[in-house]
């Protein structure tokens, strides 16, 4: 008995070290580019070629530069506005659609779901050319709605899929109990179902927000001025503090500025996303 115990211990230790090593490898692999951008953003433009990972002189000059450039500040405003509006519209529409799909039996339900999936895997780049011509014809080119519309339509399928999976997990009885208790269908939905689906709604909202926030293809194709250009597109037009220098460090600073909100968002909501709010709803 003791013999078998001592035999399993080194095996367990080996397994543990393998998994820890694997985790470190993955973290390094994913974090290295971000660390690199961060260090770049803290170098002065002339320090770019110092052949070292860390800057020779730490400086916040790049951040001052990007916030002084209207190209960037306008783009930041556009990014925030467009992403938020696209998220709100997308989540509200997806919530209703997903609820209907999860709860109601109507003809064409399968068709809608498969269509949604088809749209989700449709190569967006293939649409850019035609959208460009169309938007110019209908005067949506270089406007906020011109970007919001494609963002909403491309995030909706995924949102509907995620949310309908969430709604399906919520026991039917929740809603029926509410109805028996005297709630209208709308009250049952808002008071019993939506609070329970909150983790799903947050997850969907974050997915939709990310999609709009980080999009480059639509932003660069469907905008031409600061009116609607978002940050990812704007970074491509960056010239830095002086046009005689490589704008690399300034672009890095801009990239860090737009990455920070995402990180904060994930940190704030990760608990809500993960938390099983339905725990205790039914026997368990």
């Amino acid at each position: 008995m003791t013999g078998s115990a001592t035999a399993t211990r080194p095996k367990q230790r080996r397994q543990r070290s393998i998994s820890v090593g694997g985790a470190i490898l993955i973290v390094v692999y994913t974090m290295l580019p971000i660390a690199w951008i961060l260090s770049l953003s803290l170098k002065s433009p002339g320090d770019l070629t110092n052949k070292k990972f860390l800057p020779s002189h730490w400086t916040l000059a790049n951040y001052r530069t990007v916030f002084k450039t209207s190209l960037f500040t306008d783009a930041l405003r556009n990014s925030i506005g467009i992403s938020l509006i696209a998220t709100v519209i997308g989540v509200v529409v997806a919530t209703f659609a997903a609820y209907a799909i999860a709860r109601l039996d109507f003809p064409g339900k399968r068709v809608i779901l498969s269509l949604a999936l088809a749209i989700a895997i449709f190569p967006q780049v293939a649409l850019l050319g035609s959208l460009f011509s169309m938007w110019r014809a209908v005067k949506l080119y270089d406007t906020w709605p011109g970007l919001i519309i494609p963002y909403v339509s491309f995030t909706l399928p995924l949102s509907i899929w995620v949310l309908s999976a969430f709604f399906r997990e919520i026991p039917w009885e929740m809603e029926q109990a509410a109805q028996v208790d005297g709630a209208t269908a709308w009250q049952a939905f808002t008071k019993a179902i939506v609070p329970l689906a909150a983790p799903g709604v947050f997850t969907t909202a974050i997915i939709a927000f990310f999609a709009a926030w980080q999009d480059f293809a639509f932003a660069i194709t469907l905008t031409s001025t600061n009116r609607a250009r978002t940050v990812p597109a704007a970074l491509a037009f960056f010239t830095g503090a002086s046009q005689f220098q490589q704008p690399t460090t300034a672009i890095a600073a801009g990239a860090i500025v737009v990455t920070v909100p995402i990180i904060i968002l994930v940190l704030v909501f990760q608990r809500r996303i993960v938390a099983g709010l339905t725990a205790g709803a039914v026997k368990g």
Partner: protein
Amino acid sequence: MAPITMNHITKVYGDGYPAVNDVSLEIADGEFMILVGPSGCGKSTLLRMIVGLEDISSGDMLIGGERVNEKAPRDRNLSMVFQNYALYPHLTVYENIAFPLRLKGVSDDEIKRRVEEAATTLELTEHLQRKPSQLSGGQRQRVAMGRAIVRQASAFLFDEPLSNLDAKLRGQMRTEILRLQRRLDTTTVYVTHDQTEAMTLGDRVAVMRKGVLQQVASPRELYEQPLNLFVAGFIGSPPMNFLPAAIEDNQVKLPFLSYPLPREVAAQIGDSDLLIAGIRPEHFADSSLVDEHKRDRGTTFEVKVDVTEWLGSQQYAYVPFEAPEEINRHLAELQQELDGEQMRTQMIVSLDPASRIRDGAKAELWLDPSRVHLFDPRTGKNLTRDAKAEAPAATATSSASGSASSAPAPAPASSSAAASSTAPASSAAAPAPASAPASGSAGSAEPPAPDGSLRPT
């Protein structure tokens, strides 16, 4: 508080399958009605039609005399306890119980008063500020009940409320529900597949099979005078023994004994010579332990006991027997419907724990043939059913003391003819609330069925 009346209620699903088939049932004001049956018999569907969560394909549903077929659940003023409780996990216990009141726009003071009153009744006061996920199964169940009783609903509906609890808690909650119902005196419909709950809780019990109402009667009547083979096999634990009964020369030949064929059965069977005999395990006895004055009423016979189970308060003996193929087929079908599985044909005998009968031994058993029910294997109809027992339940039980009179009760002819289909007309007419206490008071060891009517002459 209101009576619930169902007239020819039918539920047909899209595939044409009738989940509930022509059910007529009258539930009196304040009555505790149990809907019982094996899984898939349509009892939950029927309950959900009462509350309005399921559309009614045809028939009328009346609550308090008012037709509610087209009313939404919220307009029926019923409250329901779901099998999985369906508590709102994002709300505290207080808010869960207050939920129906909030929807009605009751004032905060009134809500507080009523929630606290309900919480006191259910001993939930100290948990009011907790979330459902922090409660145990039994506490959650009580919260669900609190939500049901907090508003003055016309009726309470329970959908297998105890099936998620462990056995001990189930027993406690069962008495709790009964106490609550007696105190509030509210019409209650309770769905269960557990026959202990059915027998102990109900004023009357409605047994369903494949969407069809089989028999509606007091628990006592169901047990002692089942209308057909299905009810007989469903009610009782351990279940009623079914033995092949060959009819030869006016004798009923069972595997181990034979006795004279009762006259009223002989008149009904025509030329069929094979019936199914149903005998409750406790109607057998170890012949050495039977009282002298009782012994003459029955027959003794010898069997070989296969296995015995001694449980302290009682003892079961298993006696295998051979049965003809035809009977076996019927019994296997019946077992399947009752969610069981027939492995072998054996008879369960409930013996006095003092009995010395042991495994593998020969044993002499005693049986009173008047207690044997005979069933027609083709229709399942109980041929020995005492017509008097079918008289309105309340009168039958309240006059139990005088039941030795052999004159048949003036039961409507139609009701005694109502065989396996809906038979509520007569029993529904009974002012049922009186039946439960009455049957309790009549609770001597002897069944109300007078021996004379069944006895071979």
